[in-house]
């Protein structure tokens, strides 16, 4: 009992006088929240002198908006996750985040321990490393295997024409459609429709040239994708609104999603999940059959803010979290998202997850998953993409070719 009081007392003393308190904002995603809760609780017990205060990014519309408002208010957190590369470029541009390579050897040691030398190169912003990448989510299509079997298929459709054909057997306007084509109306949804289809059609080519600051998707691939989207809506293979959870309700056969949905869906729709087939996004008919199909990688990382009072302590926390492979194991358990490391297939710590067909499919797709263009105006560009490309295609306002060139022109205006 005495020892307990002594311990408590010393804890109180440390907390009251010597402790650094760091505010850490996590992604507004219940599964990630759970992971961080466990990790932070462990750390706080271990290090009474550096206490981490965990909080979800207070986003009412998007994380980026919440973070930027907080920065404007001078109330940025010390650390936050859920940062995509383009947003990091914007934050670096206004001097809000701290380059991690300032920690020199400690940073490189951590990068080597977590086997991510090549990965961090993709995150270089003007020669500096601001972001510590946490995970990389390739986007894959989920198809209702049970319903496809009933229609006489033993594999998911691969090319556009297969989708049109499948649709003729399944679609019944206002009730059921073959697939969800457009992911939504938010700017980030463009990652999950046009940009994904474009990567698939072009074999992973860039849609924006970040050096020349020009949109370059006004080419044969962009046109094929635009024509695909346009035709899907024109011929009623899909609709603007599909209701909530249409995939699980059986009112669509296929949709794109990331690994974050696996655990939630297993809990909520246990009867549907065993029959799901995973596939890369659809490609144009002339896409070579012997080539792998590329897709989009939704990849997010963690940053330390410039206003953090104790950056060294913040980095110690990050190093502690990501130098232990068991933390990445816990991460996969909780979220099913592939950690951003190069040894997923080789490290024995992860082999047991390869029994899970979902995780396996996502982990294997990492090699062909391309991150978004590294530009500082991602949000404005993708808002413009929504207004000038996706919505005109959805609502059939004009011909795909004209819509495409207008969209490129509008986006170049923003980039210039």
């Amino acid at each position, binding site marked *: 009992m005495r020892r307990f009081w002594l311990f408590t007392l010393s804890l109180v003393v440390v907390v009251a006088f010597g402790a650094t308190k760091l505010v850490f904002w996590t992604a507004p995603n219940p599964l990630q929240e759970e992971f961080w809760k466990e990790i932070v609780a462990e750390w706080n017990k271990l290090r009474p002198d550096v206490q981490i205060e965990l*909080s979800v990014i*207070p986003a*009412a519309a998007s994380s980026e908006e919440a973070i930027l408002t907080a920065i404007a*208010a001078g109330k940025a957190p010390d650390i936050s996750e859920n940062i995509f590369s383009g947003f990091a470029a914007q934050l670096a541009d206004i001097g809000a985040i701290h380059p991690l390579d300032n920690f020199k050897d400690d940073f490189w040691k951590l990068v080597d321990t977590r086997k991510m030398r090549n990965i961090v190169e993709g995150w270089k912003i003007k020669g500096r490393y601001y972001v510590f990448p946490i995970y990389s989510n390739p986007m894959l299509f989920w198809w209702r295997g049970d319903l496809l079997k009933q229609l006489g298929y033993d594999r998911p459709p691969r090319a556009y024409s297969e989708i049109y054909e499948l649709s003729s057997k399944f679609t019944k306007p206002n009730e059921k459609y073959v697939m969800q084509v457009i992911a939504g109306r938010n700017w980030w949804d463009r990652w999950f429709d046009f940009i994904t289809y474009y990567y698939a059609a072009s074999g992973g080519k860039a849609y924006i040239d970040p050096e020349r600051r020009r949109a370059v998707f006004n080419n044969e691939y962009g046109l094929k994708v635009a024509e695909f989207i346009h035709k899907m809506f024109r011929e009623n293979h899909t609709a603007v609104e599909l209701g909530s959870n249409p995939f699980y309700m059986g009112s669509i056969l296929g949709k794109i999603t990331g690994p974050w949905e696996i655990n939630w869906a297993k809990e909520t729709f246990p009867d549907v999940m065993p029959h799901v087939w995973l596939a890369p996004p659809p490609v144009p008919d002339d896409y070579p059959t012997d080539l792998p199909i590329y897709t989009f990688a939704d990849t997010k990382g963690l940053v330390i803010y410039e206003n953090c009072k104790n950056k060294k302590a913040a980095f110690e926390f990050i190093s502690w979290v990501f130098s232990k492979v068991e933390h990445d194991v816990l991460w996969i358990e909780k979220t099913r998202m592939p950690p951003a490391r190069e040894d997923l297939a080789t490290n024995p710590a992860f082999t047991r997850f390869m029994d899970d067909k979902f995780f396996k499919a996502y982990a294997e797709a990492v090699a062909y998953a391309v991150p978004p263009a590294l530009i500082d105006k991602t949000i404005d560009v993708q808002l413009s993409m929504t207004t000038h490309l996706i919505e005109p295609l959805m609502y059939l306002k004009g011909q795909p070719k004209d819509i495409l060139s207008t969209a490129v022109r509008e986006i170049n205006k923003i980039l210039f």
Partner: protein
Amino acid sequence: MKRIKIFDLFLHAVMISLALVWIYPYLWLFMSSFKPAREIFTTFVPSRFTLEHYEFIFLMSGRLGRPFVRALLNSVFVASTVTFSVVMTSAFVGFTLAKIRFALSRLIFNFILYQMLFPGFMFLIPLFILVRTFGLMNSYLALILPGLLSSWGTFMFAQSFKTIPDDYIDAAKLDGANRFWIVLRVMLPLTRSTASIVGLFTFIGTWDNFLWPLMVMKDYKKMPLAVLLATFNHEYAGYVGPVLAGAVLQTIPMVLIFLILRKYFLQGISMSLR
């Protein structure tokens, strides 16, 4: 004569059914928050009533860093503080302007009218900068201080004090009452309905305020319910039941206050004609 009777009957029937249509959204919201998740969109009268959505937001959300009970109390605290302050300051300033003659009173009264011409949203960004400069971000003060005074409330009080004869004040003075006493004990009771109207509309306005707290409050512990509900809706949009339960929570206090003070609500409306 007969025709008129039938017409009246028809009119009553239409108006009553419209009234039912108008409260239907509330009824649906309220019922849905007690339905099992699967039945929210399919049935009006559920197979069974459940408290699971309320359990989710009250018990779970504390663990998820979304303290709904606290947010409710925050809203109550901020709205009542602002309301109390507005009624008091408006009464005192209104009294001074209406009943004490001094050089500036005419000028200030006109200035208050002039202030009312400027819509609140014009000042949002400069106010944000002010709050930031004073280091009041993420504090209750940021939500309360700008609302301590209201030019509309002051104007309302000044107008109604003008209609009260000075005899009351003189009588109170003979009894040796000081000015504070006069305002609190003599003038306020005489203008009870003005006080209720100012209080009621201020309370509703503060409770409903969304844009301002969205800008200055990023701390879940001090968020008013409106902002917490919006962030909850962002992350847990798939959990329709708990989101609707949260909406019920945000709505019920307003409905109750309205039902209790409906008399003053109606008076306030007819006063806006002036």
